[in-house]
């Protein structure tokens, strides 16, 4: 009796694994967490001490990955729509530069002269940063949706332009970031620096709802799956596609603000570099199809966590840092191989 039951549960699990990408991604994550738990030296006798070590480790993982995690959420929308955004990493420094430029309220007294009081001076910096992120995304989106450039090419161009121009312009700009600004990311909650994690989580929830419950979200899926049908269903394909890149740019801005608030500075040569590939990796591991139309925000978060936990695991096991990227590459390839199998069966 128990035997047959066990069998059906196993069969159900296999079926889920094959048909539900979220299930397989989640299972991989659970497996990784179990391995990680073992690697952290789980010990029942001193459970309390172990647990506090374990949770500190987890807060570190989540916080360190929250910035790329937010960028990956925008990337998920872009890839579901059938595109790609290579410009996220350099957009991050471009909008970061804009933020730094205005972070001390330049020009002085703008806010007070406009009659706005009770807002810190760096609010201008934040607004400019967000607007600029949206604009840069809008430029990529317009090139792709209206000028019909391949997304790869348009965002590759934007990637080169953004970082290069930013580095040239910000050569001599040494800005002191006000301490109130640092509080955006570093205010302790329950004795822990978890604000970046909370931002990530809130944004993920909002984007999940947008992707599943709004016409815009569903239209993104429709366009990614079949652009012709979408257009012939009365969807303004150009507008939706442009908005997807605007959204990606906005999220990059948010990520940039958190990063500046975390570190208190911005390294224009290196900040955000590799974000595009890390974000794409998370999205793909999370079950989003590179050809568009398939995948989810939840999957993207899981994908990000899988990569993050794996990194942590490699660290705990003492794998040399140079080799860790290889594991990342490995898991991306394996994830897509598994998905291919699913869609074939």
């Amino acid at each position: 009796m128990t035997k047959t039951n066990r069998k059906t549960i196993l069969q159900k699990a296999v079926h889920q694994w094959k048909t539900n990408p979220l299930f397989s991604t989640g299972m991989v994550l659970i497996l990784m967490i179990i391995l990680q738990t073992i690697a952290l030296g789980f010990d029942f006798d001193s459970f309390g001490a172990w647990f506090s070590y374990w949770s500190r480790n987890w807060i570190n993982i989540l916080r360190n990955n929250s910035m790329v995690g937010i960028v990956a959420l925008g990337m998920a929308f872009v890839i579901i729509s059938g595109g790609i955004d290579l410009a996220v990493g350099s957009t991050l420094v471009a909008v970061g530069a804009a933020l730094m430029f205005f972070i001390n309220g330049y020009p002085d007294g703008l806010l007070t002269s406009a009659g706005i009081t009770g807002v810190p001076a760096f609010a201008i910096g934040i607004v400019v940063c967000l607007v600029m992120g949206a604009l840069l995304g809008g430029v990529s989106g317009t090139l792709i949706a209206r000028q019909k450039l391949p997304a790869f090419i348009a965002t590759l161009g934007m990637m080169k332009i953004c970082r290069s121009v930013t580095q040239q312009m910000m050569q001599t700009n040494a800005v002191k970031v006000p301490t109130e600004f640092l509080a955006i990311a570093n205010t302790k909650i329950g004795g822990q620096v978890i604000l970046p994690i909370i931002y990530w989580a809130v944004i993920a929830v909002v984007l999940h709802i947008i992707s599943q419950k709004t016409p815009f979200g569903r239209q993104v899926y429709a366009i990614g799956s079949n652009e012709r049908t979408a257009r012939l269903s009365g969807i303004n394909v150009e507008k939706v596609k442009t908005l997807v890149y605007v959204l990606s740019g906005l999220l990059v801005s948010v990520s940039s603000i958190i990063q500046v608030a975390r570190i208190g500075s911005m390294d224009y040569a290196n900040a955000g570099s590799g974000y595009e590939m890390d974000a794409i990796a998370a999205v793909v591991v999370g079950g989003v199809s590179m050809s568009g139309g398939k995948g989810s925000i939840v999957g993207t978060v899981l994908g990000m966590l899988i990569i993050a936990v794996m990194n942590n695991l490699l660290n705990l096991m003492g794998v040399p840092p140079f080799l860790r990227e290889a594991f990342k590459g490995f898991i991306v390839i394996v994830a897509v191989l598994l998905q291919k199998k699913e869609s074939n069966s």
Partner: protein
Amino acid sequence: MNLKMKGIVKSFGANDVLKTVDFHLGEGEICALLGENGAGKSTLMNILGGVLQPDKGTIELDGRTVSFANPAQSLGAGIAFIHQELNLINDLPVYENMFIGRELKKKSGFLDHASMYLETKELFDRMGLEIDPGAMVSSLDASFKQIVEISRALMMNASIIIMDEPTTSLTDPEIERVFDMLRMLRKQKVGVVFISHKLREVMEICDRYTVLRDGVVVADGWVKDTSIPEIARDMVGHEVNSMGNQRKGNTGKEVLRLESLTQEPYFRNVSLNVHAGEVLGVTGLLGDGRSELFRTVFGAEGKYSGKIYLEEKPVVITSTKQALQLGIGYLPRNRKENGIIKDMNILENGSIVTLPRMTRFGLIRKADQTAEFHRQKDALRIKMENDADSITSLSGGNQQKVVLAKWLSANPKLLILDNPTQGVDVGAKEEIYQIIHQLADQGVAVVVLCSEAQEIIRLCDRALVMYHGTVCAEVSGESMNEHEMMRLATGG
């Protein structure tokens, strides 16, 4: 080669698709394999083609029992499967396509273009085909592409050729060209399985026929001993009305008027009008510009010159979204490419057009969405199980109804239907005809684009015939008959 398939059984899970089916094909015989969508035709042919393996049953070639584990083995035994989506590479010349996967090479290892060209030419000459082996496949029309595929099968010594709805996207002269090829195959003792929904073509070209219904052979015999109504009855299981349009429509005010609409090179100087409660047919041969014309009216084709009036008011239509807001609906041709979104479920496919109207605080109200879709589902009698099932799990006719449902939800004043019964089986066709008439009775102006004269006669109150981008005549009543329309459409 004599083919006998005996007692073939195949099921997918609990779904018995084939229940002990016998099928045979003699040497040099053209046998029609008929049946509604979902009757099991594709499954049977996929078994013959080595794509699927039967649960039970045997396949015999000239009395020898064979089994195919994959398509390559089937091809090796001389059976070629020519799918609806042709398997040619557009950007390569014909002769290279003829040798795809088994290219001739010189000793040096480089391609031997000269020999491939010559062998192709010899084959074409032998069959009396006037195709330049060096022409790019992309420059050939659909019929010649098919002929190239058939020739390739012959080059690989195929003695049985399976053709899945070969004429769906062909114009009449092209169909005739493919039929000439089939007649030639018959002379060369090549057997052909001809899967089709077009019974008139079956009567014209086939020797024998086999009808499947729900996985069982319900009829087979010689084509000369039967008739279209009889076959249609076998396919559906009941009588099919294939008479003319007997509705007495009350036409209301003008809904659409076009004045000298032009978009080079597709159509020029098109003027027409459609009234509420009217079914207007627009027919012609493929390439006559009617699809482009009405896609332009729907805002999907870009700039045009001339004037469009909707309910007497001049409008400039630049996007599909605007067309939708103006009350225009458009059911496109080629459902797979233009009609359905395969990654979305039935409910979403049926409501993608009207989603923005079903929101509160920006969020989609699932209850409204479901209620509206179910209203359409019941009205259109869509056969389906769960809203969340994949759209591709439905038969062609039901998929088409879902596409129709998404437009009916938008309550269009003007509904343009481009080839509305493409790939739809006989029974569902009749249902779609009735739905179209009901819509017109409710005061919708309906435009039906179709190249099948039968369908125009069955559906429309009057019809325009297009030829090379211009409207060359209007027919109605007595003059709306197959001969007259064909004469006009061919430029006569």
